[in-house]
């Protein structure tokens, strides 16, 4: 570029500036405590409005009283001197979102945390607090979001646009399950469109967040993933806003007609952060000292998950919130709240985890209210039978120690149940495609593995797909789209599976 061109460019830029007399509504800091600023003035500011402090820091109006406004300071450094001027902006808190965020780790305000510069071009400014899409804008959940985890995809399938809760004690593999789900989106199973994943870490240790991000990078998942992080060391304000920021990013992709998945890890800590803020704002405390609007806090966040109609672009936003329970108590305040908001829950149990059943999903307490319609037809067909067998086994499992005194039918149930439980085990970071899931679940549910020793079931699983692909390539081809299997196909599949099962007796 010539020097004259640069001069002209700057002149044009300066000439196009629109400078009008600035009209501002001002206030002044009258008190500061624990990240909450009290200010007088600001007579025309609204609830939830963004304000600017004299030094450029920003704040969010949380309470409007008769004589003062309470403002949440939105920065890591929450020390604000008394008497500082505050300017209202008339705007809600929003985030500039574009595709440039893919592969990045950011805080709830869009500041990069991965040490690389971030420039957003052609982005849209999306408000953190938005009204969820209305009834007429939505379409039924109809396509699956494959987690790659057999027990979830078979028993509690998740559809695109669904809200499915993961609930369980600490160390039961909740985060592991969502990491697997995000990694599995790499494979684009069943020829479905790519899912953009947003992983929102709330109140976690920085080390844990770094480990998760490193795992995404190792598995090649960062290319379609955005991590929004507010670690345990950040102020409660950032932890409170993190899921709303993650949701806004998800909505950006949904409105572009794409499928997005947001993982909130976890909403218990989010509730703690909001409880802290509410207590500092001197709002009345309710059950477990949570404020009265704690239900609305989570319901308005999770309602924003949706499958949009064709007219609205056909995009979707799936929400996977995580809730940590104490000593398996799912009837505590926050777990019951979120269970009632979501379209189903996956309940993970410490006892199962310690017994080596991983993922430690309790099949009896886990449900999916809408995902069944989104399952592939073949998987739906085989998982119905397996679910029934599993339920009958669980009712009888207590008797299994009296092995010799049982009648033949009961023994058969128990034999089959043990193999189903074995088949539903799955190591971490090894998601399976729909076809492998269908085949192994069919094998166990239909009793084709009854004669295979339990300890050889894992070997069967390792070998069955290779066996089918070499011996029955045409059958694999036919089943790959997940169609409903007719009797002839089922017989053909049974024959192929039995052939392998016989070698393992």
């Amino acid at each position, binding site marked *: 570029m010539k020097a004259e061109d640069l001069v002209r460019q700057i002149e044009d830029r*300066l000439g196009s*500036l629109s*400078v009008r*007399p*600035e009209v*501002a509504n001002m206030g002044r800091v009258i008190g500061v405590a624990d990240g909450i600023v009290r200010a*007088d003035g*600001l007579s*025309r500011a609204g609830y939830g409005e963004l304000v600017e402090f004299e030094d450029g820091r920003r704040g969010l109006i949380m309470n409007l009283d008769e*004589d003062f406004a309470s403002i949440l300071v939105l920065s890591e450094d929450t020390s604000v001197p008394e008497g500082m001027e505050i300017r209202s902006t008339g705007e809600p808190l929003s985030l500039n979102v574009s595709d440039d965020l893919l592969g990045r780790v950011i805080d709830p305000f869009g500041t990069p945390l991965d040490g690389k510069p971030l420039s957003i071009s052609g982005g849209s400014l999306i408000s953190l607090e938005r009204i969820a899409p209305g009834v007429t804008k939505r379409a039924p959940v109809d396509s699956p979001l494959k987690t790659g985890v057999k027990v979830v995809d078979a028993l509690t399938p998740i559809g695109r646009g669904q809200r499915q809760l993961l609930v369980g004690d600490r160390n039961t593999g909740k985060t592991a399950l969502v990491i697997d789900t995000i990694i599995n989106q790499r494979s684009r199973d069943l020829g479905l469109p790519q899912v953009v994943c947003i992983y929102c870490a709330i109140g976690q240790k920085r080390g844990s967040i770094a480990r998760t991000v490193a795992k995404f990078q190792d598995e090649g998942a960062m290319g379609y993933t955005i991590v929004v992080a507010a670690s345990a060391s950040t102020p409660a304000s950032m932890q409170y806003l993190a899921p709303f920021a993650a949701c806004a990013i998800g909505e950006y992709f949904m409105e572009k007609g794409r499928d997005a998945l947001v993982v909130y890890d976890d909403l218990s800590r989010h509730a703690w952060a909001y409880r802290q803020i509410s207590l500092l704002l001197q709002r009345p405390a309710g059950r477990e000292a949570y404020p009265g609007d704690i239900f609305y806090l989570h319901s308005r966040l999770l309602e924003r998950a949706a499958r949009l109609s064709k007219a609205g672009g056909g995009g979707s936003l799936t929400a996977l919130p995580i809730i940590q329970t104490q000593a398996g108590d799912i009837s505590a305040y926050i777990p019951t709240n979120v269970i009632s908001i979501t379209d189903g829950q996956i309940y993970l149990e410490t006892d199962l985890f310690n017994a080596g059943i991983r993922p430690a999903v309790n099949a009896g307490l886990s449900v999916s209210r809408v995902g069944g319609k989104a399952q592939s037809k073949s998987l739906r067909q085989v998982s119905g039978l397996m679910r029934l067998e599993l339920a009958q086994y669980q009712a009888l499992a207590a008797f299994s120690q009296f092995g010799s005194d049982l009648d033949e039918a009961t023994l058969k149930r128990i034999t089959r149940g043990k193999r189903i439980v074995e088949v539903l085990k799955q190591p971490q970071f090894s998601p399976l495609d729909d076809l492998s899931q269908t085949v192994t679940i069919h094998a166990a549910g239909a009793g084709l593995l009854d004669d295979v020793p339990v300890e050889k079931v894992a070997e069967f699983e390792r070998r069955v797909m290779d066996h089918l692909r070499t011996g029955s390539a045409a059958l694999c081809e036919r089943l790959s789209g997940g169609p409903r299997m007719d009797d002839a196909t089922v017989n053909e599949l049974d024959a192929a599976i039995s052939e392998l099962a016989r070698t393992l007796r």
Partner: protein
Amino acid sequence: MNKLVSLVLGTDGQVKEDIAAEIVAGLSRSELKRFLAAFRLEMRRRIVQVSLAGEAGAALDTALSRAYPGRRLDVEKDEALGAGVKVSAGDDVVDASVHGYIREIIEELGGT
């Protein structure tokens, strides 16, 4: 408190000395603090602060009294503005000074 303040100031903005003396004598320490805050707020609402770089002209006076009818104008000179005028009425600040223009240009260019 707001009622007390309007009693003391009346409609004309002049302090009613007898009522004021009664309030100062009759209120407790904490009540007096709240009264002071409310009184200051009311003063800010009633008095329009005008900062000027140059000399005040009649045109400005009429424009301001039309914009803020019934309010007292408190005009002061402030060379730091460069040129132009800055008006504060209650919480609202209208900045039409060179100082304000320059700050806005810097903000728009993305500098600090």
